[in-house]
């Protein structure tokens, strides 16, 4: 019997290791040769070109905002696109004409429209919500979709249910890109004004919250028909009441957990989703069945004590 148990344990370990090893093998990256010419310069920090008259090779540093991380590009949602699908075809000629800098940039909704995807992203709703947000209404922000969603390395996480921690980290990194305030200068001089932890010190454990929920959970207004809230509110309107999230009817169920809960309920049923989801925060998922069982046990104990007391009094 022990031998069988040992064998099964070893088998499970081997299978588990093999399966996890298979998971970790990266998929082969498919590149687009049509982009090679662009990435020859824009995929590097330094680019070179030859002076046709003197045949001299000239080396220049690429402007930071014009460098594309090619590895990230071929892993992003737009990887199938050719550069000139979004940028002018005139960029194919070198050197680029200077007036191309005035080329108007596309925004998400120039390509993305509302589809029947479930749950719907609702681009129209996102645009409406964004136009109400501080990013759109506050003077001097000049924000566009690209300010947060870099089209060259963007990976949509709203329909990911496998790794909620990754969704949180990815989405929060978008906010922290501007709001961490920890530029090189701040890191060197430790500017206390930019310390996000200090600003969120009122939370029982700020770091735990940063790791487990997105900034938008407290800083954006939820609209039911929009998959990801885009109406970022002024800091004075941020949620500071714990029970908004830590309660049975948690706000997180309508934001961060929305997609995961819908998927797990449809796949496993309501009961399984209670214990198998990653959607856990204290107070958010009291099981109605367990609550009922505990009330019955408590009721029986109280009733037993009451009956015992009455008989004791009668028999006194």
């Amino acid at each position, binding site marked *: 019997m022990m031998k069988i148990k040992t064998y099964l344990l070893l088998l499970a370990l081997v299978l588990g290791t093999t399966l996890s090893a298979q998971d970790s093998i990266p998929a082969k990256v498919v590149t687009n040769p049509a982009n090679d010419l662009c990435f020859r310069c824009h995929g590097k920090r330094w680019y070179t070109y030859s002076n046709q008259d003197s045949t001299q090779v000239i080396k220049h540093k690429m402007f930071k905002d014009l460098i594309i991380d090619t590895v990230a590009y071929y892993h992003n949602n737009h990887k199938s696109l050719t550069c000139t699908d979004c940028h002018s075809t005139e960029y194919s000629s070198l050197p680029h004409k200077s007036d191309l800098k005035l080329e108007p940039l596309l925004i998400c909704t120039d390509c993305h429209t509302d589809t029947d995807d479930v749950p719907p992203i609702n681009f129209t709703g996102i645009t409406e919500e964004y136009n109400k947000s501080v990013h759109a209404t506050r003077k001097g922000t000049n924000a566009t979709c690209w300010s947060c969603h870099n089209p060259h390395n963007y990976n949509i996480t709203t329909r990911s249910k496998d790794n909620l921690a990754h969704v949180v980290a990815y989405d929060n990194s978008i906010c922290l890109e501007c709001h961490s305030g920890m530029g090189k200068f701040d890191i060197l001089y430790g500017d206390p004004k930019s310390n996000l932890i200090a600003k969120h010190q009122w939370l029982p454990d700020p770091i735990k919250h940063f790791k487990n929920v997105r900034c938008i959970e407290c800083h954006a207004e939820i609209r039911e028909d929009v998959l990801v809230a885009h109406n970022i509110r002024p800091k004075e309107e941020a949620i500071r009441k714990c*029970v908004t999230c830590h*309660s049975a*009817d948690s706000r997180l169920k309508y934001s961060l957990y929305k997609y995961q809960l819908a998927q797990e309920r449809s796949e496993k049923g309501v009961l399984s989703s209670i214990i*198998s989801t990653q959607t856990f925060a204290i107070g958010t998922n009291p099981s109605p069945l367990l609550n009922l069982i505990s009330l019955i046990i408590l009721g029986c104990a109280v009733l037993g004590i009451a009956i015992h007391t009455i008989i004791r009094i009668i028999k006194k």
Partner: protein
Amino acid sequence: MSGKVYLYPIWIRLWHITNALLCLILIISGINMHYASPEGTRIRFDLAVSMHNISGIILTVSYVFFFLGNLFTGNGIHYVIQFKGFLKRLWKQMYYYTIGVFKKEEAPFPIGGARKFNPLQQVTYAVIMYFILPILFITGWALLFPNIIIEEWLGINGFAATDFLHIVGGFAVSIFLLIHLYFATMGKKPTDHYKAMITGYHEDESEHESTH
């Protein structure tokens, strides 16, 4: 008139009252967190969290004190169950509580210097103190430092499973406390056991046993 025996030394009484108060705070704050609601008018959530965390930490220290006290004094012996004939003794005690007490029968295992707990108390206290409370401490400290919790095991969320064990353990302690408070009224007079836990002196019921 029967004599009194000094049954509860000062360290036990201090530990007992500390334990009782902390358990009460933990139960009240725990229920507040479990049934938290935006419309609720109970204790504020962040306050309940702080109350629960601080009380839990103090209870752990208090438990270490109790554990060492039991290890280095004679008190620990009262928790050691003699398994031979235990079920028979347990049944006898249960019979007394459910029927015998109403027939004015004498307690089958009277309390005295040599025996502090009847078999039912012994098994209940041993389970609560050496099984349920350690589970509560382990899961409670894990929830205090969630980074140490395994995120997922066999498709079960580690946080949810830890929280589940903590809540079930907490519920068991709550039910125990309720029944414990009631059974404490089962002395000769309903207040006898309560007084004994304050003064340390308990009526030596075993004297009746010897005169039987």
